[in-house]
């Protein structure tokens, strides 16, 4: 399990290759990369606030829950905080398993829990104004779907 919380930029490809090199016996590797989306071509930057200490605990718990639920060879979660520009990678998860369905489902699960259970908050500066990104009902619904599955 590899959990990283950092302000520094990262290269998703390099991270994927390093992750893949470290798993043995897995036939399937799934990655998810989240990128900063522009807003009406006017996003000056995004600032991600987090809760140091709790962030690492929450991500470790989410990764552990995924490992308990699926037969995974390994799990990676990296999430940035601080200031980011449009199209920069915000975060990445990767899962490896013998089975492609397990790798897909676990990555999807990690993303759903990370979005609503890890203490990050996004603030966008658009046309000189700062605004907090709002959580959506969809995000909570996604968690409920896992609980009843």
């Amino acid at each position, binding site marked *: 399990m590899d959990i990283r919380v950092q302000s520094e930029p990262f290269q998703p490809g390099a991270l994927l290759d390093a992750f893949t090199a470290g798993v043995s016996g897995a036939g399937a590797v799934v990655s998810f990369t989240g990128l900063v989306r522009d807003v009406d071509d006017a996003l000056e930057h995004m600032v991600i*606030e987090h809760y140091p200490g709790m962030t690492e605990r929450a991500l470790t718990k989410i990764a552990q829950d995924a490992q308990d639920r699926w037969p995974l060879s390994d799990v990676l979660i990296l999430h940035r905080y601080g200031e980011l520009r449009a199209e920069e990678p915000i975060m990445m998860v990767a899962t490896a398993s013998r089975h492609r369905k397990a790798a897909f489902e676990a990555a999807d699960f990690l993303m759903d829990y990370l*979005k609503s*259970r*890890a203490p990050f*908050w*996004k603030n966008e500066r658009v046309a000189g104004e700062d605004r907090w990104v709002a959580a959506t009902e969809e995000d909570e619904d996604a968690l409920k779907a896992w609980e009843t599955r």
Partner: protein
Amino acid sequence: MTLTVLYFAWLRERIGEGREEVETDAATPAELVEELRAREERYAVAFQDISALKVAVDQELVGFDAPLAGAKEVAFFPPMTGG
């Protein structure tokens, strides 16, 4: 007891600080919110609708009626928006 109380995102902005030490006998986060609300207008405004907020005790998400006995750190914040 003395608790470290943390605020994040727009809650931090409305309260005007991210961290404070609070002397309290509150048994639950809900009681702690009541005490803070009574303290100053900015708390009353920030905590107007706690259904829009989440709380963590010692870095674990809990309900507003969770026990505070033995806790060291309580954090209030809006729903998370990572990913």
